[in-house]
């Protein structure tokens, strides 16, 4: 066996923060040979990204390699001079970042940016660099590459930007490519295309790849070996199949259990949580209409129909999943139902009353405001940075129920918080002092505090780690059962929708392509688009044949 391409030995990284020195990596080690693909999986804060930055020697000023070493092609680069590192980066090792749009320079064209990389490391003239850039764009299969050469990043979709990033990363044929959450924020179908492309290109060129991801399914599908990180340590590593088949470390097991698969149920996700008793609800007395009726809703954005003639109903205590990719109109639709924006056609009927005709700007005065509440996608973004958790949860009570400060308000806030699983001790904290999961709970507590009848959930777990997602999903399910709360669950994740909802509506480009009971849609999709969506989800099947895997 030849010498490994990359050897990380007992690497320790410290960060100096306001509260003293914090150790981010507690001596990790792994080995990577040329052409191999290693997946580093773990939840936020586990040190995945710090690992990649330390290997690239791109840690910011607060970070410092405190011990251990990184051998790249047999050379110790932990103490290499900045000049040597510059020639290594881009040429021998390169990186793909999480947010492609942010990583590209907005004021330079695609061609210029790829040429910059090429000319930084090779002595070639502009014409030659241009030709190579064009070849690279063809390699990453950008449609109409000649025309795209002069495009600016804002003219390209997220998937296209990531392809440009990949083109830049492989431009100088590096031996090692580090991809840090390369497809987070992309649609599942785009993710599949981008990842297949990445796997194919690196395999062709014999590059070694480190794939950093929180998505076990993705790692299982594209990596030969996997290292599981928790709190700055690698708790377990080994070949992918063996690791998934026979996980040794409890954390790995927990992570595997929490990742939704084709067949998992809510109870599977959070092991050890008390089982949820199915509540049998008496059938609604005849004659009562549905809780929510969406009738032929239309929303136009500068001529295009973002939401096009969408109708569905939700019964009291029922649950409906709204599935689609970005641009399918699912968020616009949820905002219209929540009466935050006005529709251009159609109506929303809530408990037999039309609320679609109340202008969104006046809806805050409508009595239905407290009955229709929403939990937003990004828990960080949806909390006022200057409100404590208490104030955020108390806000709807103050506004919608006219409650004043006092023991009654405190009691209601504490009750809502405890129903959302938020410890009372955390109520005095500001959002930046809370973790992602805690912030999500504040968002849920705020939405359930005024005791709504319909709760809209806009990708409530998209920004969360899988283990937290599992807990939050269970929590939502319990709220629904206990309070007879109807849920409208907006998500791109079919697995999650299948577990949470009785009914499912699949949207594409503003139109309903399929609707029906979620089990039926999931097991036997009628529309071609639904099938594409389902196939694109990177499942890992601990016991499935490895044929599903694309080996790099």
């Amino acid at each position, binding site marked *: 066996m030849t010498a490994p391409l990359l050897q990380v030995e007992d690497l320790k990284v410290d960060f100096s923060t306001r509260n003293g020195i914090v150790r981010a990596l507690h001596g990790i080690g792994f080995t990577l040979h040329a052409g191999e693909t290693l997946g580093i999986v773990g939840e936020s804060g586990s040190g995945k990204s710090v690992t990649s930055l330390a290997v690239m020697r791109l840690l910011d000023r607060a970070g410092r390699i405190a011990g251990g070493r990184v051998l790249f092609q047999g050379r110790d680069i932990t103490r290499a001079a900045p000049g040597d590192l510059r020639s290594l980066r881009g040429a021998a090792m390169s990186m793909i970042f999480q947010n492609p749009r942010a990583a590209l320079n907005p004021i330079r064209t695609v061609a210029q940016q790829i040429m910059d990389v090429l000319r930084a490391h090779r002595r070639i003239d502009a014409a030659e660099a241009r030709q190579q850039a064009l070849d690279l764009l063809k390699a990453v299969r950008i449609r109409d590459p000649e025309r795209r050469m002069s495009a600016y990043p804002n003219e390209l979709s997220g998937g296209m930007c990531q392809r440009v990033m990949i083109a830049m990363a492989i431009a100088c044929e590096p031996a090692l490519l580090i991809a840090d959450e390369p497809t987070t924020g992309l649609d599942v179908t785009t993710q599949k295309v981008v990842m297949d492309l990445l796997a194919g290109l690196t395999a062709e060129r014999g590059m070694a790849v480190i794939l950093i991801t929180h998505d076990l399914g993705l790692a299982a599908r594209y990596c030969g070996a996997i290292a599981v990180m928790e709190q700055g340590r690698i708790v377990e590593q080994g070949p992918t199949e063996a690791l998934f088949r026979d996980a040794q470390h409890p954390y790995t097991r927990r992570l595997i259990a929490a990742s939704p698969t084709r067949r998992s149920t809510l109870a599977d996700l959070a092991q050890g949580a008390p089982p949820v008793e199915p509540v049998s609800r008496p059938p609604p007395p005849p004659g009562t209409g549905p809780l929510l009726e969406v009738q032929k809703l239309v929303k136009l954005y500068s001529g295009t129909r973002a939401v096009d003639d969408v109708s569905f109903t939700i019964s009291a205590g029922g649950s409906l999943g709204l599935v689609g990719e970005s641009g399918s109109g699912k968020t616009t639709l949820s905002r219209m139902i*929540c009466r935050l924006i006005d529709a251009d056609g159609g109506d929303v009927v809530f408990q037999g009353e039309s609320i679609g005709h109340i202008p969104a700007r006046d809806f*805050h005065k409508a009595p239905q405001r407290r009955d229709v509440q*929403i939990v937003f996608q990004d828990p960080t973004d949806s909390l006022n940075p200057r409100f404590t958790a208490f104030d955020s949860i108390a806000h709807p009570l103050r506004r919608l129920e006219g409650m004043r400060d006092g023991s009654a308000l405190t009691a209601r806030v504490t009750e809502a918080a405890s129903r959302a699983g938020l410890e009372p001790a955390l109520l005095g904290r*500001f959002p930046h002092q809370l973790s992602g999961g805690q912030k999500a709970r504040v968002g849920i507590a705020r*939405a359930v505090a005024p005791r709504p009848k319909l709760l809209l959930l806009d990708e409530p777990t998209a920004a969360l780690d899988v283990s937290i997602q599992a807990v939050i999903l269970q929590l939502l399910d319990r709220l629904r059962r206990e309070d007879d709360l109807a849920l409208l669950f907006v998500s791109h994740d079919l697995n999650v929708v299948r577990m949470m909802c009785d009914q499912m509506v699949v949207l594409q480009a503003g139109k309903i392509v399929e609707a029906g009971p979620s089990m039926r849609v999931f097991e036997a999709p009628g529309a071609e688009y639904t099938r594409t969506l389902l196939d694109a989800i990177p499942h890992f099947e601990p016991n499935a044949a490895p044929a599903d895997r694309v080996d790099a």
Partner: protein
Amino acid sequence: MSATVAGTRSTTQHILFVLRGNPVTAIAATLVTLLVVIAILAPWLAPYDPIASDVPSALQPPSAAHWAGTDQLGRDIFSRILLAARLDLFIAVSAVGLSFVVGAVVGGFCGYRGGRLDRWVGRIVDVLMAFPLFVLAMALVAALGNRMENIIIATAVINLPFYTRFARAEVNVRRNSGWVEAARACGESHMMVVLRFLLPNVLPAMAVQISLNLGWAILNAAGLSFIGLGVQAPTPEWGIMVAEGARFITTGKWWLVAFPGLALMLTVLGFNLLGDGLRDILDPRMRT
């Protein structure tokens, strides 16, 4: 606003932390605090009557009896500087306060609503900024009359464009935040979203502007008085003192100009240096 629960750093601790990490802010804060204390206590601190002339002891250099010397009418310059701090600070704080409140509210609504209102206000602000600002202030005082209220109004008007633009830009960035939508879902009206949600979040960034502006406003008020369009003699005011003293500088009577000038300089410096530190103190996200 609500019960504070253990787990957060106290405000005092936080302020101390910021000051310790940033000695320049600490010096600036001391300077500004000192100035405010002087302004409040000036009538009791001043050793002499700042207006009473005492011609026999005119134009005396600094001495133990008169720390900053005396002017052409024998008035104690030190006492006059102390009293002038009060007036200048009052003018600056009122003017900046006025332009901040008006600018933040107008800019905040423009940034939130956008559309025609925003375009119109934007153009008016552009027109206002097209004037040389000090000349505009001079014109305003000349037109409105040579009174303190008018100096305040003139200074406020020339500061207004900065606040309006600043608030507009900052609110515009945040108006699509999730927490603004969440506030709407909680039944908040548009007006309250701007006043209770957006503007408080813009405040830390604006505090920097306010601090820088205070120094500038003091300079502006002194400048107006210096050219005779401000507070009238014999009221002690730094600008007038420098203006009156300038006549004697050729004969070597440097203290008439130097001490009021020094007071002016230290004040402006103090406010300018305070700006950055203030942002760190006011932003709750810095409080980890």
